[in-house]
């Protein structure tokens, strides 16, 4: 991604440099050639519609190439591939709290392997922050009250700057850290040192202890919709609209259950806003997503067996 951005940047620099040079040279040459000398008067000229139109239209088409190239890159930046490893990021004044799917937690550091698509699912506990990795030419604001995402595929092992790019208070400039890119085998080693339970396991326990299982049953139709296979699928709502059940929808449905009622269900679920923390919410979301077995496994590098597909799990839940 960085190389694509750089290529576009070089193109823009060349075009802008050319334009700047053109204007500077034109101004300088004309200013010297037509400097005021006694006995030579200015020559009145009205203007030229042909010139005006051409220097409006031609630059516009040049700008369109900027737009199209930029849009293509942006589109790719904003479309995480389906097989990406997911990492949850919670920002707060003034630190980055990071939780891997395997349950590994870090603060102000993010370890990732090379050659792996990594998708960050980010939210903030207080004000707006922005996750900025200059080396990857990427940045995304992190907002309270919803998820934003960012994805990348690191190519070269090393230690890269992580900055907060949205002003967030006193220690804004201290809210940085490192992205540590490792070769896959080093990464596996690092990951093996971690103790914790996988994130979706935590989520599963919460799902049981919060009583979600009593309504969102997976064997028969409960009072709430069956959540197996829901993630990333279109959901028909009571008011006739259809939404995609992405992370933000799942999140909203936990915090504000009546906002978008699934067709055929009653708005009976209580809100969990203020009852669960952002970390617990992340775990629940991760669990609900794990119920819709991702195409190629959530984390390609997990050495422990990925959570078994939906069927066996549901019997456990009961």
């Amino acid at each position: 991604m960085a190389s694509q951005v750089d290529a576009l940047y070089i193109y823009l620099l060349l075009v802008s440099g050319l334009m700047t040079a053109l204007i500077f040279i034109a101004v300088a040459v004309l200013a010297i050639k037509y400097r005021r000398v006694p006995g030579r008067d200015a020559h009145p000229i009205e203007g030229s519609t042909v010139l005006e139109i051409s220097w409006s239209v031609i630059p516009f088409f040049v700008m369109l190439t900027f737009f199209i190239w930029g849009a293509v890159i942006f589109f790719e930046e904003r479309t995480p591939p389906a097989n990406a490893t997911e990492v949850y990021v919670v920002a707060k004044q003034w630190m980055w709290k990071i939780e891997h799917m395997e349950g590994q937690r870090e603060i102000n550091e993010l370890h990732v392997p090379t050659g792996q698509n990594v998708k960050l699912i980010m939210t903030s506990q207080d004000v707006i922050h922005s996750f900025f990795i200059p080396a990857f030419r990427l940045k995304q604001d992190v907002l309270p009250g919803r998820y934003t995402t960012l994805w990348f595929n690191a190519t070269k092992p090393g230690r890269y700057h992580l900055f907060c790019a949205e002003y967030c208070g006193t220690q804004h400039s201290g809210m940085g850290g490192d992205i540590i890119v490792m070769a896959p085998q080093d990464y596996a080693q690092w990951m093996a040192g971690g103790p914790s339970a996988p994130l979706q396991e935590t989520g599963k326990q919460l799902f049981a202890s919060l009583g979600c299982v009593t309504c969102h049953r997976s064997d028969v139709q409960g009072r709430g919709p069956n959540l197996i296979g829901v993630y990333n699928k279109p959901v028909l709502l009571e008011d006739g609209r259809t939404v995609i059940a992405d992370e933000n929808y799942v999140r909203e449905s936990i915090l504000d259950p009546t906002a978008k009622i699934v067709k055929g269900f009653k708005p009976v679920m209580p809100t969990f806003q203020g009852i669960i923390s952002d970390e617990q919410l992340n775990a629940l979301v991760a669990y609900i997503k794990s119920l819709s077995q991702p195409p190629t496994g959530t984390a390609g590098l997990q050495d422990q067996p990925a959570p078994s597909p939906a069927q066996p799990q549901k019997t456990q839940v009961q």
Partner: protein
Amino acid sequence: MEHEAHNPALLHHFADAQQQKNAASLGMWLFLVTEIMFFGGMFCAYLVYRLAHFNAFAAGSQQLNIWLGATNTGVLIVSSVTVVLAVKAAEAGKRKVLVGYLVVTVLLGMTFLVIKGFEYKEKFEKHHVPGATFNFTDKFDDNGKQIPVNPKEAELFFSLYFVMTGMHALHMIIGCGLFSVLTVLAWKGHYTPGYFTPIENAGLYWHLVDIIWIYLFPLLYLISRHS
């Protein structure tokens, strides 16, 4: 300057009364445009949030008193009629009629504010004022269906309700003050058929405040009663 002798209201830098009147009128209209944009920011917020939290907005809207709202709309419309008749009286040089209509307009404006005050009082009593005491337990009731509403989002609705109607009420208060001053000046005979620009411009302002309410009424009270 040489015109000063002809018309005491004519300022020195205008060529004639016509130019001065046209300038004042255009100035007032431009000011009304700024008012449209000022309220526009709030309308924008309202539309965005209604889209995002329809259920809560519907439930909040149900709690507003549609009859008081409609009555207030009527009061404002009648006051707009009296304003337009006041301008007409000023144009015709009927001083007493002018003063009469201005007084009625101020009274109608105050009636609006009093009714609005009763509505606010009701909100206080029902704990529908955002803040620490906010409490929203009422359920959206459509054909017997009970729908719980996230009270936080209902609080958002009432925040907007108070900001929008409060800003409008502030404009009403300013308008009442303006017309009170004009009433006194009109009584003293400041306005002639040749010069009544302040009456006209205050009238334009009053009509705009009326128009804003004409939109606030359906947006806040009416459109979310059914989904």
